[in-house]
């Protein structure tokens, strides 16, 4: 009892410097919030909804990529730096495959694109998933018992390798990605509209995330994943095939990243071989923001980062957006390392 009280007191009353740092943190957040609200109020409703449309669509893609980071981190505590490049690989691969599926710009439109696009999604997701499983097998599995630094370095190496392969393949140029999504605006009443493109991106991403959540919560393999994340050795003793479970995690994470790559291409209509690293870092920030290792947290974090991105771009300065995102990353880790939804995990 006494110990509990002491622990409680320790968590509430911290050292004077720590509480000072916390105060500074709260003040910074408050100032930022007030400034944003004021600018949004001045900007008017139409502009606000347009910005939110951008933000939610971008956030949906961030969330898809962040899920892969969070799942892998949850299960083997590795920051898979190559994940962002698997995402770009999805965009590159699908771009190369489009003619095979009859998806040529100007020749096909309307509802006819749905079926080939679905096929494109399936093939690309499978491809990315297999690539990621191979990466895990080659670069991470042999180092599972090695010092923590070792797999991190191979992850950076794999990221460079994937970027290099894409660079050799298509060169360091901005490639045009065909535009198949409808361009019209959906009226929301009162002169406020939202882009149909953004709505479609959000719908696809949300469907994929719901499927993932159901899978992890309901299926046997999902249960194995949760068990492995919690305690790898105990899970092994219970007869769970650890290697297969970890491979499955990489498989699913990369499938989502591959889907994210296609959506990214369809939404922005441009991809570049080195996009993935930056984008992966934003997605990783989203995963940390939501609470790394936490699947709903990654989805929430992705959406929030997307919205912050859009608000910063739309109401403040585009040049400082990236600085802001990384500042958030540091901020979250300093003030709330467990993220918004994360729980305190003891260091293994």
């Amino acid at each position, binding site marked *: 009892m006494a110990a509990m009280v002491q622990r409680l007191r320790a968590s509430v009353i911290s050292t004077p410097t720590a509480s000072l740092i916390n105060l500074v943190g709260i003040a910074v957040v408050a100032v930022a919030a007030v400034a944003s609200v004021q600018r949004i109020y001045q900007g008017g409703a139409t502009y606000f909804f347009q910005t939110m449309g951008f933000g939610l669509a971008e956030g949906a893609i961030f969330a898809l990529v962040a899920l892969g980071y969070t799942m892998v981190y949850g299960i083997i505590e590795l920051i898979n730096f190559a994940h962002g490049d698997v995402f770009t690989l999805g965009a590159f691969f699908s771009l190369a495959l489009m003619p095979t599926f009859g998806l040529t710009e100007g020749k096909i439109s309307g509802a006819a694109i749905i079926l080939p696009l679905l096929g494109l999604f399936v093939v690309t997701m499978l491809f990315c998933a297999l690539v990621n499983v191979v990466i895990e097998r080659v670069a991470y599995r042999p180092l599972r018992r090695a010092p*923590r630094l070792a797999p991190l370095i191979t992850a950076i190496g794999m990221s460079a*390798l994937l*970027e290099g392969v894409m*660079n050799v393949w298509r060169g360091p140029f901005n490639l045009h990605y065909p535009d198949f999504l409808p361009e019209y605006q959906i009226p929301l009443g009162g002169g406020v509209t939202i882009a149909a493109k953004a709505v479609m991106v959000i719908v696809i991403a949300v469907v994929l995330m719901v499927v993932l959540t159901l899978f992890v919560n309901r299926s046997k393999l999902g249960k194995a994943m949760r068990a492995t994340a919690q305690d790898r050795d105990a899970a092994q003793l219970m007869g769970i095939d650890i290697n297969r479970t970890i491979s499955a995690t990489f498989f699913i994470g990369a499938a989502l990243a591959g889907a994210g790559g296609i959506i990214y291409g369809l939404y922005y209509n441009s991809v570049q071989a080195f996009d993935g690293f930056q984008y992966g870092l934003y997605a990783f920030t989203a995963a940390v923001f939501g609470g790394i290792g936490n699947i709903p947290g990654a989805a929430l974090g992705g959406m929030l980062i997307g919205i912050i991105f859009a608000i910063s771009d739309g109401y403040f*300065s585009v040049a400082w957006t*990236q600085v802001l995102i990384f500042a958030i990353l540091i901020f979250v880790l300093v003030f709330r390392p467990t993220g918004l939804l994360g729980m305190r995990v003891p260091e293994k």
Partner: protein
Amino acid sequence: MRDLVRSNMRNPNAIAYFLMAVVALFFPAVVQFASGGSGDYLVGLAADGGVYMLMAIGLNVVVGFAGLLDLGYAAFFAIGSYTYALVASNHLGVTPIEHSLHVPFWLALFIGMFVAAGAGALLGAPTLRLRGDYLAIVTLGFGEIVPRVFRNGGVWTGGVPGISALDVPTLPGWFQGPWVGQDFGWVPDFRFTTANLTAYYVLMVVLITFVVILVNNLHGSRLGRAWMAVREDETAAAASGVNTVSVKLLAFSIGAATSGFAGAFYGAKLSYVSGENFGFIVSVTVLAMVVLGGMGNIPGAMLGAIVLYFILFWLLPNAPLQMENLASSLGLGFLNQSTPDGWPGIAEVVSRSKYVIFGVILVGIMLLRPQGLLPSQIRKQELRHEEHEAIAAPRQLQA
């Protein structure tokens, strides 16, 4: 003398130091001789390589000694460079301060170093309590922020074009001798001009020697032992009376200081700084150098820096031309032409494959020789010790 030689015959570190010293001493003369007096480019390249070597030595303190993964090391490099640029150019004159500073080179070098160390302490103080990979992420974020801040800094940092026309190094005023302004053997004129890169090279060698002696002493000191204790087991170190936070903070700041020092020299050598030169790729390159050479071993990190610098900045830039010549001489000249169906010509393919090679090196080293080219002897002993234990007791499952 004979005893000294005999006792070090089997010490790989001593051999590495000796060989590096000999190579460093004779490199400019040999290059100039071999190329018939036109080896200035190579000597200058070596001086630039020295910047990376300095950074590798500094990062080795952070990653190798204290076991803290720093993925934003280039940020401190940038801070050192920009500090030098601000205190040793006309740039402050065009900012609202309207008075430019021209701090002498040797003082500016140390100002850059201390500012970087201060930035390291400022970043480290709130974040060093975090667990290992969270620290890596914080430093990564910091490394992404700093160059962007410099790029967006407007009039203060020169914006995207950066700051140019920085002061070139000078010898300290009291440092007089026959070599100043006169021919002296293979040093034609010991003045720092763009035409005389040997001077920069010699300065670099002096700076590296200085830093190596300093870091070596630190390694053997009480602080060095505390770093290793923290690296191996932080809880045990804390229980033994090591103030882990201040020890880690010192490692972080000393690493940052070395990087800032290298950055100040880099700024002076290029006479130009821009936010584009300090991206994540620089941090990763330096990390790869330390890993390749052998974490926790100073000559190892230096060797890793030499090898990787040679590959990245000499072999790879020259490879496209070599491949083109090779293709022509093999009768495969058609490979050199770009075709409309996407083949960009062999030279272009080779120059694009830089990142592939980079990735293969990182992954390959970690898988095949994780201890690096020149492993740390202490760590080796520790590993051997563990093996004995493992034989005696059944191997425990590790989480």
